[in-house]
């Protein structure tokens, strides 16, 4: 009967938001088989489409990219920086003298990428290269599309392969190819373009969007894994500190106050009290519960630290500090190794706990 729980030991949580274009926040679940002793882990994906306001210098640079032109800026020592820098590296003064440079240049040094990862400019083996464009004094790091390490060398001449539809973004420079390359190799596979931003009336690109995604493997401790597997069986499992005798749920593996291992497991009831709470009325990006809802610190009977959960089963304005509550479990077939097995806590109808009995838990 616990097959679901065993199979469901890995959950995927994804929080990928794309404001201001299209807010997305999704949660999906994948199942995998894990033995009981392995600490639990699951993928955690975090992503956001950050907007970058460019300021005058990079606005000019990006706007020119949309015209398939590359612009640098002259520094206090006369050198031309590409991409342009806003402030001089030596004097820290604001720079203003733009200089157009070529889209052809010379490889200064390079390294080989045999297994490109997601998001890199070329999605087949390629070379990273530091490239000094003709007319520039600094090198630009970019990708060069060649077959093998045999076909790239320091001093090699390369030219920009422009994206088919420039939008005013650094990725308008799709990648570089050998200056004398023909069409025989065909277009290199490239990652999806970032969203284009709205242009000003004069065509200026004053902001860009830089989507950033982080993929983690989120692992929990052996103690928390035991707690989560107990949850998958409908049990609340904490641990007691041998020094201060405080009961922690979720268990920490060590007492944060005494610094000693907590080895004694304590099974707790699924009843307790609300110590304090707030009513969330505000909608926000990535929110996974529809407001209004009551977020409450729940102190289980026998525990010495509360955890946050939802309170339903009564009007929000009827929730009180000290109110007695009981876990409302989801249907058993939906149980996972997660505190989300408890859908919410709801009032038991018993008399409230006196303030003094929980004042030290606030």
């Amino acid at each position, binding site marked *: 009967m616990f097959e679901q729980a065993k199979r469901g030991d890995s959950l995927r949580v994804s929080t990928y938001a794309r404001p201001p274009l299209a807010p997305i926040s999704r949660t999906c679940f994948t199942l995998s088989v894990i033995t009981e002793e392995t600490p639990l882990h699951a993928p955690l994906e975090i992503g956001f489409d950050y907007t970058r306001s460019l300021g005058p210098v990079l606005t000019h640079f990006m706007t020119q990219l949309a015209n398939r032109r590359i612009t640098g800026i002259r520094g206090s020592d006369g050198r031309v920086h590409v991409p342009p820098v806003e402030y001089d590296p030596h004097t820290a003064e604001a720079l203003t003298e733009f200089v157009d440079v070529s889209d052809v240049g010379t490889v200064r040094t390079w390294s080989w990428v045999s297994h490109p990862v997601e998001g890199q400019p070329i999605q087949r083996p390629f070379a990273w290269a530091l490239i000094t464009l003709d007319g520039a004094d600094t090198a630009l790091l970019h990708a060069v599309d060649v077959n093998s390490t045999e076909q790239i060398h320091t001093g090699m001449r390369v030219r920009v392969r422009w994206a088919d539809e420039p939008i005013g973004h650094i990725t308008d420079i799709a990648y570089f190819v050998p200056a004398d390359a023909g069409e025989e190799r065909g277009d290199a596979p490239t990652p999806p373009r970032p969203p284009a931003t709205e242009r000003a009336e004069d065509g200026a690109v004053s902001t860009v969007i830089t989507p950033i995604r982080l993929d983690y493997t989120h692992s929990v401790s052996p103690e928390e894994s035991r707690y989560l597997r107990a949850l998958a069986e409908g049990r609340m499992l904490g641990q007691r500190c041998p020094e201060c005798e405080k009961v922690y749920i979720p268990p920490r593996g060590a007492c944060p106050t005494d610094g000693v291992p907590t080895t004694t497991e304590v099974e707790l009831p699924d009843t307790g009290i609300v110590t304090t709470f707030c009513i969330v009325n505000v909608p926000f990006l990535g929110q996974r519960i529809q407001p209004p809802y009551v977020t409450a610190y729940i102190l289980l009977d026998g525990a010495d630290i509360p955890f946050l959960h939802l309170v339903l089963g009564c009007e929000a304005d009827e929730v009180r500090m000290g109110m007695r509550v009981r876990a409302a479990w989801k249907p058993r077939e939906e149980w996972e190794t997660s505190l989300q097995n*408890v859908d919410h806590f709801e009032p038991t109808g018993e008399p409230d706990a006196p303030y003094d009995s929980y004042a030290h838990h*606030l």
Partner: protein
Amino acid sequence: MTKQRAAVLGTGQTHHTTKRTDVSMPGLLREAVDRAMRDAQVDWSDIDAVVLGKAPDLFEGVMMPELFLADALGASGKPLLRVHTAGSVGGSTSLVAASLVQSGVHRRVLTVAYEKQSESNAMWALSIAPPFSMPVGAGAGGYFAPHVRSYIRRTDAPDHIGALVAVKDRRNGALNPYAHLRQEDITFDSVRASQMLWDPIRYDETCPSSDGACAMVLGDEAAGDAVDGGAAWLHGTAMRTEPTTFAGRDQVNPQAGKDAAAALWKSAGITDPLSEIDVAELYVPFSWFEPMWLENLGFTEEGSGWKLTESGATALDGTLPVNPSGGVLCTNPIGASGMLRCAEAAKQVMGRAGDYQVDGARKAVGHAYGGGSQYFAMWLVGADKPEN
């Protein structure tokens, strides 16, 4: 070598607003830096080191911003440090910069803190639920509102105290040309009528999301002596930290805050903060935190913070003006908010606070907290040199 005297030579900040789309991140910082350097009458060659502060990287999606900001901060060939202690970072950054002078290592240090909240979404960044957990996070307001409720219950505070603070701070902000929210017409009734966001916290009792930066130039005794009209002398600094959660933790009146304040008063020779301190710039992102921090810092006994607020003592013309600049309730570029508190305290004792200058301000406190009320950083500056 004993601790060297140190002083604030000048301060600068941006005009704070919801979206500064006309500047880049480096450009935003430079506005504050250029103003601070002008205020301090120093040039790049006078600066020996740069200390940068910024809140969590996820807020703007820039890893190690100190690297890409080095040119804009004139840090080529100089030591450049980045400090991070969540929302208190502006305070702790100020203290780290001060320590580089107090230690005798550097003569003049530029310090700057910033946040460009418009490039991301802090509510989203603060509400990410890791696997296996219950997704009940609801940003900073969702985190702090239950503890505000606990404060109200613990002290029997009347429920209108939060609105009193909001009206005071927003009207103060109207006197500050750099403040984000400048609401001279706000009233007690309009605050009470604003939407309940995270009950018991109303919309008008919360801080805005701001783009902005703050910078200061700190210097040694000789540099401080040379400041026209007098520098802001450092009389004491203190930082303390505690874990976010442990059994029995006091989330309303955290021990780390009490300890930091006690250390600050001791180091500055203060025995009665309420009578000896002329101005306090406290980190109050939700209005109820004014009475909470008044107690935590020891300005009044536990349970009496709200009485001090209700009495009008914390108003601009009160006995202890709190946040004459309008504070975090008017301006919240998160990473910079703590440094703004330190800088505004300095401006008061330097007599440079303009329309919100507190008459006769000789000693002022700048305070910041961060994380789940777990990082505390504060400093005390004076118009006179400290005796020790």
